[in-house]
């Protein structure tokens, strides 16, 4: 309409452009529908939400597939979109890769027999989902978001060689998640003295933290039910600073907020690892590998905090390489 003021031919050009765009859009939608029937072995990636974080997984996943010279087509949709067209999507899918808890919950009971590879999953949550799902026959595996205990202890050993006693806060009801057991075994193997304190209720946070920090050299924060709480994290960090004893955590956000160190697998790390796993799978049968931790991880150090605590810590990269060496993985 604004063209009318300028001149007639401008208007015509505009209409021509619009018509052209409509035509292109139509053609694209037709072709995408057409390609739908073609590849029965295609992967459908279901994201828990349309946030940049999940997109990060996808970008890295696809890039790694390209680097591995794998010509596999992957379709990306959100969990909400999947729920609306479950049957249709499942029909065209060879393998489901779900990214996050919500996506996994949406797909696991309606995959129509297709295998589900659940990524970016907290181990504890995956165990619950696996146990409580309705269709027990669906093939289900996972790439965990958390880190194996051995890796966390390895980080402590390389970064803080003088540490002997590791304190860990565990949930009150000692969830059958096997956390305590794996911590005890891991610590004993690595030669550490493990100090466990139970978090009974919200009110008792500060006294429990005081006990842990007065007995241990360092606190290992673990992502367990009832322990992932911003207020709790704040209290842990405040107490840590009061006692001048560091916190080893499980995310970069935690380190930014005041923990000294963390080893974690970012969505990109998980995307990369998942793609490598896909590379090793048969594209016809989609035989899922066993549920595993990612061997791609990042180590972060809060340099300012290290300085203010008078600790000389090596760089994140140095620590990661030492840890990769120990796990027998190729260093970068």
């Amino acid at each position, binding site marked *: 309409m604004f063209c009318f003021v300028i001149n007639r031919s401008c208007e015509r050009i505009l209409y021509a452009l619009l018509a052209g765009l409509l035509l292109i859009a139509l053609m694209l939608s037709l072709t995408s529908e057409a390609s739908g029937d073609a590849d029965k072995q295609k992967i459908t990636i279901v994201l828990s939400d349309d946030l940049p974080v999940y997109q*990060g997984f996808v970008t890295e996943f696809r890039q790694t597939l390209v680097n591995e010279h794998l010509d596999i087509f992957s379709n990306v949709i959100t969990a909400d979109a999947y729920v609306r067209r479950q049957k249709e999507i499942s029909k065209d899918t060879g393998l489901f890769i779900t990214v996050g*808890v919500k996506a996994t919950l949406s797909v696991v009971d309606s995959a129509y027999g297709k295998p589900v590879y659940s990524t970016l999953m907290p181990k504890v949550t995956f165990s619950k989902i696996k146990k409580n799902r309705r269709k027990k026959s669906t093939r289900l595996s996972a790439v965990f978001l958390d880190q194996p205990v051995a890796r966390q202890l390895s980080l402590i050993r390389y970064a803080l060689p003088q540490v002997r006693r590791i304190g860990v806060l565990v949930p009150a009801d000692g969830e059958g998640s096997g956390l305590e057991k794996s911590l005890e075994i891991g610590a004993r193997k690595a030669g550490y003295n493990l100090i466990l304190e139970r978090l009974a209720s919200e009110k008792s946070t500060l006294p429990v933290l005081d006990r842990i920090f007065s007995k241990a050299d360092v606190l290992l924060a673990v992502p367990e039910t009832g322990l992932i709480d*911003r207020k709790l994290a704040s209290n842990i960090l405040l107490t840590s600073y009061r006692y001048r004893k560091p916190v080893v955590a499980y*995310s970069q956000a935690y380190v930014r907020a005041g923990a000294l160190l963390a080893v974690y697998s970012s969505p990109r790390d998980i995307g990369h690892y998942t793609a490598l796993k896909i590379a090793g799978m048969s594209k016809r049968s989609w035989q899922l590998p066993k549920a595993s931790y990612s061997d791609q991880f990042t180590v972060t150090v809060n340099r300012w905090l290290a300085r203010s605590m008078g600790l*000389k810590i090596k760089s994140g990269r140095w620590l990661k390489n030492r840890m990769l060496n120990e796990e027998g993985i190729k260093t970068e």
Partner: protein
Amino acid sequence: MCRSDHSTWTAFCRVMTGFIVAIVLAVPAGAQEMITEQEMLGEIPLVISASRLAQPITEAPAAITIIDQEMIEASGARNLVDVFRLVPGFVTANWDGNRAVVAPYGLVDIYARRMQVLIDGRSVYMPDFGGVTWSDLPLALDDIERIEAVRGPNAVTYGANSFLGVINIITKTAAETRGTYVKLTTGSQGTRDALLRYGGVGVNLDYRLTLGYQKDTGFDDVVDNRRAPFFDSRLDYRFSDRTTINVKLGAIGGELGEGEDANLLDPPRDETISSNYQHIWWTYKTDNAGEFSLQYYHNYHDSRDSFTTDPILIPPGISTPLFFNYDVTSERHDLEFQHKFGVSRFLRLVWGASGRQDKVTGEKLFNTESRLENNLSRFFVNSEWRLHSSLLFQAGVMLERTTITDSELLPRVAINYHITPQHTIRVGYSEATRNPVLIEEKAEARLCAPDLGPNCSVYDPYLRSSGGLVPEKIAAKDISYLAQLSDSFSFDLRLFQYDIEKLVDWVEPSPPADDVTGSVLDWVNADYRVVLEGAELQASYSPDINNRLMVSYAYTDIDSGKDTTKRNYTASVPQQVASLLAIHNFQDGLTGSIGYYFLDQLKHLDGDFLDERRQLDIRISRQISLGSSEATISAVAQNALDDYKEYRDSNLVSTRYYINFALSFK
């Protein structure tokens, strides 16, 4: 939110910002008792950090320089003022051995009053003269956790008087100074300092008490000795998981040398100081990272300086002693309320109000026995709009009124755009005012010849404010580029323009023919504008934990139009100011640091012409662990290069040496 001065800075960080939303919104359906990836990866509010700002530097609406403990120690500074040389563009000077000024860009006389200075949120500039009496602050350098210096005006966040800059001194929490600490200092200029500090930690209550003593003789051949015993304390009480109450109390006393040899009107003498403060603040954290806070403080400062001269010959031919009385008492009560909260995932707000009561008594300076009052009320709102993960828009406004000025509405806007998480551009506009202080608006001081009669106002005043002053105004525009080029290297480049008008200045109108004193000083607002334009750079390089290099540089151009007063603003702004601080940790607890400072030639408004000066400070320290305690011995050489004059021809600074011995044990 991503931070530039952090050890790990990856694109991943930017991507994480999406999770701020996730934490606030509901947990995905069917997963109430299950941990989700969003919780594991989600943001945790900053608790302990290098900046402890509510936001990272790349998202701050103003240009901020942070000086941390390590930098303060490495600079070897004995006086707080010397530390500010590390801020781009800040000019520091001692106009007397015991008196100093700090001024962004210059434009300063001995009552440097164009800057806001806060200690833990308590404003310490004086209601009578407007500047900060740095020598009378009961604050030990060892108790400072960090200093945030804002370059340029920032009324919205820091309130009244945040004219050319703001200095926000943040002390260590009581928990950070646990244990016993003793420090002794000896050195040039008769320096003898002692510090004793004890900090205790409990389940809910942490406390600290610092006792200090400082003594020195100031510049050679100048009467500017200082003796200052002081105490400072802090109490941090964690009332509950959400509520904390902090209390600080401090006091300082002692004497400051004044006067000059062989000056009948200004004889050598001691001024007695007595100052104290009480400060309490309460914070309550709500859900969703919101916070309420309420703060009250009281500052009291008393200075006694009065003397009778020897008989002086005064017109019309009488020889009589004169009596001078510079006694001044000033007091401030301030109450402030603030509320921070997130309105939605895109918008955060901070708003608040404060009321302040300033009272000054100075019989001979104000020619009245009654107390002069200057009260202030202020209301502010600041909003932060996250338009996109890489685009932040901040807008705020402050409404302020004082007893001697009308209401002022001062805005500030800023846009921060992250081209990539490592490269940010910020564009900002800010207005601020500097309110006239009581000495400018209400001074009336007369010579007093007690022998000539009981009524001292025999003679005409030598200071008389005609009053009717309006606040100085500044409008600042700036554009900055902040870059985090790698884990170890970052810099911040800024171009600015300050448009200043209504500067309040001393003038000397021609005195009437029969006037005894020969001159009367008055204060008036300038009728011309002063424009400052320039560029600033600060860069930091730290390849590993044992090495740090920080550089600052400022280039300033001033256009002061028709400078009709006696002052020369152009000469008071040095064209270039630069600093460099390098720190290296050797093995075995040995640390070496070098500070190099350059200041272009300048003439302070009421000082003498000074050549460009180059200072080199060197510090070496050795830390020794003795079981559960730690001893640190350090030696400092200040001004290892040529001697230079500071502020006035009479202040000659040569190389000074200090030795510190400190012992800390739990």
